[in-house]
């Protein structure tokens, strides 16, 4: 039987994968994917916990997150295109213009 803990473990594993992606990847596009992975890991946890407690609030939240993530991706990708046109690359090591 697949219980709540299994879902949460999956969620935690996906979140960790996303986190490692955020920390290790150098390409901005890949960073975007990694954040999406983390968001969806959270969505899994929301949905699972919501089901466990028989409370729809968590699932509603998951929908909200999906909606916001979609709009965020739309804006973010737009910025990425502009950045790529300007610098010819999306590698973070080439984009370090704010060195203190």
């Amino acid at each position, binding site marked *: 039987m697949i219980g709540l803990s299994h879902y949460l473990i999956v969620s935690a594993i996906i979140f960790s994968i996303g*986190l490692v992606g955020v920390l290790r990847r150098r390409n901005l596009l890949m960073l975007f994917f990694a954040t999406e992975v983390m968001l969806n890991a959270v969505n899994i946890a929301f949905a699972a916990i919501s089901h466990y407690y028989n409370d729809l609030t968590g699932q509603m939240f998951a929908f909200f997150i999906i909606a916001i993530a979609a709009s965020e991706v739309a804006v973010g990708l737009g910025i990425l295109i502009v950045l790529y046109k300007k610098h010819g690359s999306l590698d973070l090591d080439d984009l370090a213009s704010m060195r203190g």
Partner: protein
Amino acid sequence: METLVYIALFAPFVGSLFAALFGMSERRIFVGVIGSSLIGLSFIASAILAYNLYLTGTVIQVTMMDWIHAGDFNVEFGFVIDQISVTMMTVVTLVSTVVHIYAIGYMDHDKSFNRFFSYLSAFVFSMMILVMSDNFLGLFIGWEGVGVCSWLLVGFWYHKPDQDRKDNPSISPSWAANEAFIMNRIADLGMLIGIFILYWNTGSLKYDEVFAQLPYLSDSVLVGAAIALFIGAMGKSAQFPLHTWLTDAMEGPTPVSALIHAATMVTAGVFLVIRSNPLYSMDAVSGVSFFIASLGTFVAFYAASMALVERDLKRIIAYSTLSQLGYMFAAVGLGAYWIALFHLAAHAFFKALLFLGGGNVMHAMHDELDLFKMGALRKKMRGTWIYMTVASIALAGLPPLAGFWSKDAIIETAFNEHTYILWIVLVITAGMTAFYSFRQVFLSFHGEDRHTALGFDPHEMYKFVLVAMSPLAVLAVITGWFMGTYKAFIYNIGTTVQYDMSEHTHHLATYLGLLVIFVALSGIAYAYIKYGQTGDKAWKRSEKVENGFFYKLLINQYYIPKFYEEFITKPYMMISEVLWKKVDLKIVDATVDNIAKFLYVSGDKTRSMQTGNLSNYLNWMAVGAVLLLLIAAISAMIA
């Protein structure tokens, strides 16, 4: 009438502000003229108020505005014109007017002429607040105001360098000014505590309300308040052991010495005790009152003894001021408040005259004050000589001049109270007073001419200055004749100021008066024999006398300034140095410095985080998030 009160109070203030406008510019004669006229206006207003009070006997009380309203604590800017304050107002403004006019001549060559008038008028304004206020807080503001003005004026020639104590006992004007200010701070703390005690126990600062509550207070409160207030009076009126500043304050310009350090400010202490007479005449504080009388008598004698050998003209007059203040305190201590107030007024007139005459001599001798370098000045300075002689007779206490009536009344009071030791000391002091004041007159104006050989060519003061001094001379002569009138005038105020001699004393009054006159005359005669003659009998300096023990003791002021320097100033200096080097630098400053250094160093080290690389930032963010999670987890576990 209310308008007159405000004119009397604010005319000097306007004068001060007006002179301040020209403070930085060169000498403008109209600054002095306008300043003097405004003080004169203030005098006229005060005189009308006094006359009106004399005719109608109605005390005027005005409240200008609310001052402090905090919870239950209410103080108003209120002024009271009663017999006591109106006496002070008239005396202060009259002497101030004369001194202002005098200063136009005296400060003639000084490049800070305008600044001088600004300070001098500011002083008069503060003094008016002091005497007119109807509550202790207003009095305290005036009290501090005159202190600041005194500091400014004593140190008026602040550019003069410090000298060794052997060459100049008061070191320098700025040193003397600081000494005066600091010594007064010590006393003011006492006074402030006294005011606190009264407020704490009566819930008011207004004289009327405080005095109405007095019978309901416990003895210890009354004694505490009386002692604390008297400590304040001791500082301002330079009573032992806070007396050394007064003679050193002579470093200031002579008009300042005449106005502040003889006629007005130094009498503020006496005024405070007279103002608080309901407190000091309580049975519970009779011990304190007797102490005041004893201290006053002691100071009268003590200061007179130092004046016997002093060579500096102004310092002699300063000692005589101290001595006369001692007489006033003797009177207030014995309960004869109105006699003290009368002596205060009479003393203000003849002492200011004496000082201004001394200023003429100083002006003529190009700031030389050593009596040993003068002699026979009367031929060249006839007007000044007459003034000085009149003032000295008044000071010595010969009838019919002012000093006789008031001082004799004080001495009689001591007899009347059966305090015979005080009486004897006061009589002896009267003889010493006569001696030193005439020693000073004879040394400067009579005897052999010693100044010509030293290259001095004295000249008389300007005419208008001599004319301006004449009101003081007239008052120094006639004030005493109005003692009876004044007595009737001030008796209206209440029973506590009333003081009458017993039948027994009254019977003996003539003999007592004759005794005082005899003692004073013998003092004068001795001074003449020793210092006044010319030719073979002329006075010469004697090594033997000047090396004698008593001479050395007196000329060094009983070594009290030396004592203060060795046992107070120097240890204080050492402690300050230790605190500065050990505590301040090593602990206080070091703490502040290290906080700054820590922030600086940590900022410098963490600066390398700002690589500009988004990936690094994200890593740091992750580290931060993990740290926050850890903290949350740990605190949750602890809770």
